[in-house]
């Protein structure tokens, strides 16, 4: 068993590390879209948070302050998106695209001006990044055959944000389906007029949803630069925001299915790194690019209704105008 089992566990552990930013960003998108705001700017908010977190951590030497800065910046961008989408009834896709492009330019521009390393931040060491947490007894329990390594390598040995992401899924489920705010959130996305009739401000619900979107995107972005890696590099998100969006669509805008979509995409990503150049039985060598494109192809197929059916929140993308 051992070699195969251990390499499988390594694959699972790397899937967990890859799924963390995806699920956080996808849940962020869930709040925005469930409230009726289309958010294609997950990518931009994550990138901005990654940069702000790394830059702040580099200046202050504290990962926690970095995380705070990442969250604040992501919230600010989410509110800017809200200003365009809610206050000025602007086109939400255009606004999202504007933010993505703005940040793609701003992060390297500021990075280069502040750190003179071609748009990167300095390497973060010590308390400036979130280290790996070893759960109690990992080494001892690791001696137990089969189950032991599972505990030692898969359950133990991640940084705090990974555990935060694990906790986020049930928490989001609870907020969306079991709280008053969650009910109003879903109403704002499905039938804002009903919500308005009930005397609840649609705009206020949507702004609050966007703040949560900002918080989650901020954590997701900070994870990339001050937890998973040790510093910000150019275009660090590399399409993860769009992948999260795909996972959200794939998960039909529900927390648990979205988690499974994220796990599927992250597993494909982890596998892809291992499969490079490996010849498989029957199919032969699978082109890496095919596995990379797989999440997007699957999402298109789902959207097309060939595998299940994905129906977006009804009022999503439509500015709410009272007198209609």
């Amino acid at each position, binding site marked *: 068993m051992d070699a195969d089992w251990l390499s499988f566990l390594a694959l699972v552990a790397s899937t967990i590390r890859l799924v963390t930013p995806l699920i956080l960003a996808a849940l962020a998108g869930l709040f925005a879209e469930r409230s009726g705001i289309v958010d294609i700017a997950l990518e931009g908010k994550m990138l901005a948070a990654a940069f702000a977190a790394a830059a702040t951590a580099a200046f202050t030497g504290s990962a926690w302050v970095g995380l705070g800065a990442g969250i604040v910046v992501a919230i600010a961008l989410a509110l800017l998106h809200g200003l365009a989408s809610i206050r*000025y009834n602007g086109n939400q*896709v255009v606004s999202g695209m504007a*933010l993505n492009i703005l940040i793609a330019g701003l992060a390297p*521009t500021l990075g280069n001006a502040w750190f003179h390393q071609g748009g990167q931040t300095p390497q973060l060491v010590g308390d400036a990044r979130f280290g790996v947490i070893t759960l109690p007894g990992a080494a001892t329990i690791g001696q137990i055959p089969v189950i032991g390594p599972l505990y030692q390598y898969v359950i133990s040995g991640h940084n705090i944000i990974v555990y935060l992401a694990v906790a986020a899924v049930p928490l989001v489920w609870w907020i969306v389906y079991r709280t008053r705010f969650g009910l109003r959130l879903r109403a704002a996305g499905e039938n804002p007029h009903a919500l308005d009739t009930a005397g609840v401000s649609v705009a206020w619900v949507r702004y609050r949803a966007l703040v949560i979107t900002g918080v989650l995107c901020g954590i997701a972005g900070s994870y990339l630069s001050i937890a998973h890696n040790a510093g910000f590099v150019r275009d660090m998100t590399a399409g993860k925001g769009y992948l999260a969006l795909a996972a959200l669509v794939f998960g039909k805008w529900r927390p648990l299915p979205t988690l499974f979509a994220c796990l599927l995409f992250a597993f494909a990503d982890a596998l892809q790194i291992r499969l490079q150049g490996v010849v498989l039985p029957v199919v032969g060598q699978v082109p890496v690019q095919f596995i990379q494109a797989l999440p997007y192809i699957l999402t298109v197929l789902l959207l097309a209704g060939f595998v299940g059916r994905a129906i977006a929140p009804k009022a999503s993308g439509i500015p709410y105008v009272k007198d209609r």
Partner: protein
Amino acid sequence: MAAASSSEIPRWVDYLLVPLVNLAVALLLSGVVVIAIGANPLDALDSLLFGAFGYPEAIGFTLYYATNFIFTGLSVAVAFHAGLFNIGGEGQAYIGGLGVGLVCLALDQWPLVLVFPIAVAAAALFGAAWAFIPAYLQARRGSHIVITTIMFNFIASALITYLLVDVLVEPGQQAPRSRDFAPEIWLPYAHNFLKALGIDMGQPPLNFSSLLAVLACVFVWLFIWHTRWGYELRTVGHSERAARYAGISRTRAIILAMLISGALAGMVGVNDIMGVHHYLLVGWTGGVGFVGIAVALMGRNHPVGIAMAALLFGALYQGGSEIAFDIPQITKEMVVVIQGLVILFCGALENMFKPQIAALFRRRAVAEAA
């Protein structure tokens, strides 16, 4: 959206003043960013203008960039007229370039006069084909075109990387690129023509495809405002319900709009692959499809506006490299910041200043009437 005010204010205010105010705000904020990173915005502006227009080679580069932006700007605009947001210009341009490259690789023993129209047709066909699937899915299966075109950008990127790494790669070549096309079918450079006239403009990549861009502007203007199909497409974009009452096929309008949109984006491949690189490579589009969004929004979806906005962005891209060279604090990504701000203020926040400007002119009109 702001339809109530636009009919009551003079057209020049709506089409010229409002975009200019929005542009001014975007540029002003860019200036703030420049100050924040410790440079002088006036120096930057000076350097930008010189870099974009200061000498003949710079003008050539500016026009070369503008050519690409006209194609992608028109592409976004045609889709906009049908009420669709095509974010897939990037992927459609990339696949259009593949079409051009395949034709050039297969037929480069033929004379240029024959290869050129075939390559243009291939660019249009490949770009249109890449837009067709999202269009069909939107029209027939209700899949949101924004999401599908984003996905298709990634799929295009993976496809081209696969083709160039595993299939089209030049034997013995390490980098993912095809062999060079025969020089006989390279598109003629503008500087060669001008040299014959005694004008030396250095060696900018400006080539014959710029004329194609001008033709594309005329074509889009004729198509959108002077054909039945263009009328149908605008009707669907304006009100799907009205279109249905008028017996206009929504499916046909959506698919037609996206086919033309994709074909226009594919033209970028003619300019870059046949005109500049002369071989197939990966990652050559570099965000040109996204610039098209800014260009279309700035140009108010009209070919004349798009040509002007494309020129502006051409100048920003070319001048931006000059700034990066002159002022060490500023990198070429500064241009991307400006682009983002332009999309934000001309697109998403277009209703921020418009009511005030409209009110100003309405009051004046009322005062004059009284």
